[in-house]
């Protein structure tokens, strides 16, 4: 490997930008298909190239990937290349036949985006009435015996109040509840969705409480945009394997038109190259690629620059940092920062 490039662990691949939803928080602003989306042959070649680079996980998403008729072929190519397959769907197009086809692919995880814990809040976030259907689907997927069924909730100012209802919904079930925070990305993004500091603190307190008190009962999976070296020893696991944002270092995002990004959550301003110009191996091994992400620790600013955990943390998730502070080099939504501030504010 060239200097700066690590072994590629996972690829998040948008196989189409077509979507039946128009969610305001979508980082890809999905809706219409991109003008020049790659064909099934190109996707199969991509799968082979990624596997040759050592990639282990291929996350297939959209848009809504089920709107692409050849999604099954692409999934089969991924499995044939020896990678684990993860599927992320909004769930509305999943029929019993689709579930059978999912099963045949033996995915590592089937994830359903699930952003509202009531019909009303689901509609407020997603714009359609999909609550009951998604809920039934998640239960059906569990019954089907998939290796892991995840419900993904992106918390914004609109659905933060649903946190406890979600907990009630998923407690004592085998469903993995994956939570993440909304990031400013995508052309449709509405800034009123962003969490403010108090809302982040509320989210952090609730998630922390669940992690500490409901383990074994609630399979809560917090994503890379939560954590960062908290002083609380019970949350030490949040950073035990963290050595900076994996975007562009161990993970890559690929759009349906071949655009290569460090992470799909970052949005269009971070396109590094295109697969039609250079194959993924050449892009990945190029020492100049993803330079802003691979050498981030030298340029930290603000609170993060002075933090004792700075060298390992590197300001956490880059997409989150850019969203909440406007800079990749400082992350306002950080547990350690919250703890330190609360200590300083004690009277």
């Amino acid at each position: 490997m060239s200097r700066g490039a690590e072994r590629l662990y996972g690829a998040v691949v948008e196989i189409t930008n077509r979507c039946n939803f128009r969610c305001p928080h979508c980082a890809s602003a999905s809706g219409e298909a991109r003008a020049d989306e790659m064909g099934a042959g190109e996707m199969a070649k991509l799968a082979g190239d990624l596997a040759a680079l050592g990639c282990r996980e291929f996350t297939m998403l959209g848009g809504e990937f089920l709107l692409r008729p050849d999604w099954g072929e692409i999934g089969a190519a991924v499995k044939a290349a020896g990678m684990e397959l993860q599927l992320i769907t909004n769930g509305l197009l999943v029929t019993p036949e689709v579930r059978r086809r999912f099963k045949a692919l033996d995915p590592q995880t089937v994830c359903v985006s699930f952003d509202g814990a009531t019909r009303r809040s689901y509609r407020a976030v997603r714009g359609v009435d999909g609550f009951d259907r998604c809920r039934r689907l998640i239960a059906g997927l569990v019954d089907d015996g998939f290796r892991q069924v995840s419900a993904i909730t992106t918390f914004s100012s609109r659905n933060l109040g649903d946190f406890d209802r979600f907990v009630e919904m998923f407690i004592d079930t085998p469903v993995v509840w994956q939570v993440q925070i909304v990031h400013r990305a995508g052309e449709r993004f509405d800034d009123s969705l962003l969490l403010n500091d108090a809302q982040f603190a509320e989210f952090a307190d609730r998630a922390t409480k669940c992690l500490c008190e409901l383990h074994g009962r609630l399979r809560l999976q917090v994503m890379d945009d939560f954590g960062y070296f908290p002083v609380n020893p019970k949350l030490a696991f949040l950073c035990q394997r963290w050595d900076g944002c994996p975007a562009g270092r161990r993970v890559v995002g690929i759009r349906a038109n071949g655009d290569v990004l460090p992470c799909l959550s970052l949005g269009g301003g971070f396109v590094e190259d295109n697969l039609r110009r250079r194959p993924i191996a050449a892009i990945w091994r190029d020492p100049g690629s993803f330079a802003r992400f691979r050498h981030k620790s030298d340029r930290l600013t603000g609170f993060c620059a002075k933090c004792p955990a700075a060298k390992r943390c590197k300001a956490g998730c880059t997409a989150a940092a850019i969203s909440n502070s406007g800079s990749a080099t400082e992350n306002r939504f950080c547990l350690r920062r919250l703890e330190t501030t609360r200590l300083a504010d004690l009277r």
Partner: protein
Amino acid sequence: MTVEKIKELMRGGDVAAARVAAKALAGDEPGNIEARALYGVCSRLAGDDGEFVRVDDEIAAMPGAPRSPVWRRYHAMRVAACGSMLLLPAAADMMTPVMKYGGPPFVDPVLVAPKPAATDGKYPGKVKITWKKVSGAAKYKIRRATSSDYSKSKTIATVTKTAYSDKHPACKPKKRYYYWIVPCNAAGRPFKSKKRFDAGYAKQALKITTMGAMDVGGSLQLEVEGGPCDDISPEACKWRIVSGASCATLSKKGLLKARRMGRVVVSAAYRGAKAKTVIEIGVLRTLYGGPPFVPVAETVGIDGGARDAAE
């Protein structure tokens, strides 16, 4: 440098500078608990757990420590094995997550379990177990076994106090039991702790089981029971009328004969264990206030014969 300035440095993330400033201020003002506490906290934030613990011990010995909110929270961190409970509502709740994701589980702190003191034959029918409070524990599980082998012990109770009485009939008199105390968090989850036990036994328990009422002119054989001594015969006890001797007579074998209405207090003793009971002597139907007693067989026969006869 003032405490406020140190806090300002912390808010800006400059923990290293805050630590240096807090140390200097604590040196200049030895009685300034908050400065000292901030120094300890900053040490922890900087990863120096040894200093964090040392400073906490130092502050704990100072007279005004309990009044400092910073130190109280700081001490809660210490209790939670050098961690911060800032994000949790109850500092005493120290449940540890076992992670399915993101890494190995955090290892629980090993607390020093208290050595229990169990009474040796001090109380009839019970063993009283006491122990010292363990810092950080919200509850205690009491485990009991008939040998000193901990693996054979079973939890008999979970309590929040530092004393427990193991009573008859679960605790049989004169039988030696071994007790362990396991400190737990508020949710009842045990901490890892060293195992220390004490053995104890209960004195003989004795109880007079005979119904406390009889008719004038009647006689009543008094009975006793006492844990493993259920087979104590009344003849083996020493019987005595404590009061009301004019109403009844009592034989050595525990046979009470009622002579007139009144109240008799009777005691029994067996190998150091004593019991007392009150027996009312009167006319039973008057005493209970109900309708006159009629034998059951005359009301409803097993085969309905009584009703048939009435018809």
